[in-house]
């Protein structure tokens, strides 16, 4: 259960959502798309087209080769201590062939989309919720979605209930903007919400369905709107993987030169620890993403070398201070406290 906290305007989390679905199509998995905001048909029309291996691989290969030939033989003179550390690998190398790459500027062809079986759930087109048992005690929109998912899982045999089916396939479920007001849940607008347990109960039952079947699910949630932080903590406990996207649009970080190459940060709050005592923790926790014309990449956040005249690492205030300094000439008085005074 991959839980994604949306960025403020939902641009980048939408992109991630579409990547998940596109990967499903390319791998031949079945899809289930649920939304209360956009009709799933429209979502599916906007999936990015997969890049054919030879063109992208060549591009990346060229880049990597250029980088390697440049400084491979350089031995460091001043910073010789760092010589033995591995080179900073910002982007994935050609050797990791896990998954596919996508071209964001092109849409996926309709024939490719039709090649897999997909199911949609658009909340406003669904019939209202009726329950057979009296056990349901949650928001009716969520309940309806759970019923729909369970029906697809058992009908299509993702839970192994149909022994005749020889080829077992995976179901990829994508749920967009869960918890928003469009689902009938007021957890994003009031604190305390009317039914604080709806979202968490939904996640628990969904987790049960996922564990019982061959499926994977991505959920995007406008977490920045949820006032009640206790709910976010509980939701984190109930998910396997929690990723937050923070975009720089409209925030003060947009103009911060530290972040000038990137469009936002990726916060990995939790990674799955399944079937094992340990989990696979990566070396670095600082990740940032950027959206180039064709590609959406997630890279390690590494700071460019500080080539300004100031001694300290510049933060936003310091940068304004140093700009004044530079414009008035180097001999001017140092105004920031961080500069060394002689």
């Amino acid at each position, binding site marked *: 259960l991959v839980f994604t906290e949306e960025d403020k305007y939902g641009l980048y989390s939408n992109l991630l959502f579409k990547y998940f679905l596109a990967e499903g199509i390319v791998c031949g998995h079945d899809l289930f798309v649920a939304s209360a905001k956009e009709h799933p048909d429209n979502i599916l029309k906007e999936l990015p087209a997969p890049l054919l291996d030879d063109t992208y691989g060549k591009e990346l290969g060229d880049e990597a080769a250029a980088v390697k030939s440049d400084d491979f033989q350089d031995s460091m003179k001043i910073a010789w201590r760092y010589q033995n550390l591995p080179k900073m690998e910002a982007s994935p190398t050609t050797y990791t062939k896990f998954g596919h790459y996508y071209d964001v500027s092109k849409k996926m062809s309709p024939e490719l989309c039709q090649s897999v079986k997909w199911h949609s759930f658009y909340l406003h087109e669904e019939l209202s919720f009726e329950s*057979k*048992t*009296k*056990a*349901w*005690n949650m928001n009716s929109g969520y309940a309806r979605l*759970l*019923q729909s998912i*369970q029906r697809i899982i058992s009908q299509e045999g993702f839970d192994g209930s149909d022994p005749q089916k020889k080829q077992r396939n995976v179901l990829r479920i994508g749920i967009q903007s869960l918890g928003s007001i469009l689902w009938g849940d007021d957890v994003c607008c009031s604190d305390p919400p009317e039914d604080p*347990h709806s979202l*968490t*109960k939904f996640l*628990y*039952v969904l*987790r*049960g*369905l996922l*564990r*019982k079947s061959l499926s994977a699910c991505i959920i995007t949630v406008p977490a920045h709107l949820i006032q*009640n*932080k*206790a709910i976010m*903590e*509980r939701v984190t*406990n*109930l998910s396997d993987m929690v990723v937050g996207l923070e975009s720089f649009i409209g925030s003060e970080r947009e103009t911060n030169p530290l972040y000038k190459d990137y469009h936002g940060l990726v916060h990995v709050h939790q990674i799955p*620890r*399944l*079937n*094992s*005592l*340990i*989990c696979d*923790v990566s*070396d670095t*926790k600082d990740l940032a993403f950027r959206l180039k014309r064709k590609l959406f990449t997630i890279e390690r956040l590494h700071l460019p070398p500080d080539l300004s005249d100031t001694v300290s690492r510049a933060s936003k205030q310091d940068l304004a201070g140093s700009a004044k300094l530079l414009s008035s000439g180097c001999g001017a008085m140092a105004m920031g406290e961080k500069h060394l005074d002689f």
Partner: protein
Amino acid sequence: QGKFTLLRDTRTDGSFLVHHFLSFYLRAGCKVCFVALLQSFSHYNIVAQKLGVSLAAAKERGQLVFLEGLKSCLDLLFGEQEQPGQPSPLQFLSTSDLRALFDFVRVSLTPADRGSWKGPVLLVDDLSVLLSLGAAPVAVLDFIHYCRVSVCCQLEGNVVVLVHSNEDSEDEENELVVSSLCHHSDLILWAEGLPTGFCKDVHGQIKIIKRLSLRQAAEQDLVQVYQYKIQDRNVTFFARGLSAAVL
């Protein structure tokens, strides 16, 4: 015998302690009732096999009673009409009433025959989930109280419970339950992420608090702190600052 152990984690995942206690008590020959609310049976089974115990075999010979919360809730919500005499232990999803869960625990640990197993053990993973599913904090505390009375006092068994907590948590209900349980525990094992942040060689630190003050008025609690690193098949503990990577 008759001890209540609280497993607590902050900023990290303390479930390795649950796996440890599960295999520990099964190997010791105790009858175990495991209320597993957060993960599936196969998850625990796979890890237990790495630790040298087979949960499936224990279940078959009646030593382990396993309540798989995720599966039971699906049966409750998507299943056919249940038999009237047997309410599902996960009733609280609809009624916020934990009594059915307690009855399940009591029935599974009360020895029907004079049993070949040594003392009964109740293991819960994890209690914080009950709050997410609609139970009130007071109901959760009542449930634990009833379990203590029947398992620790009447049956002279042990109870081990896992909860999550956070220092600056905004989840007041959870913090209320956790503080209350801390006061009533005989032993607290508190796994914390390192305050300095993530580290590859030291996964966290564990505080072992023996609540001697609970049994005898004049005694002080005994607190020991170790750091640990989790590996594939076991966990290594070492004194603070003496990780193998440093030495």
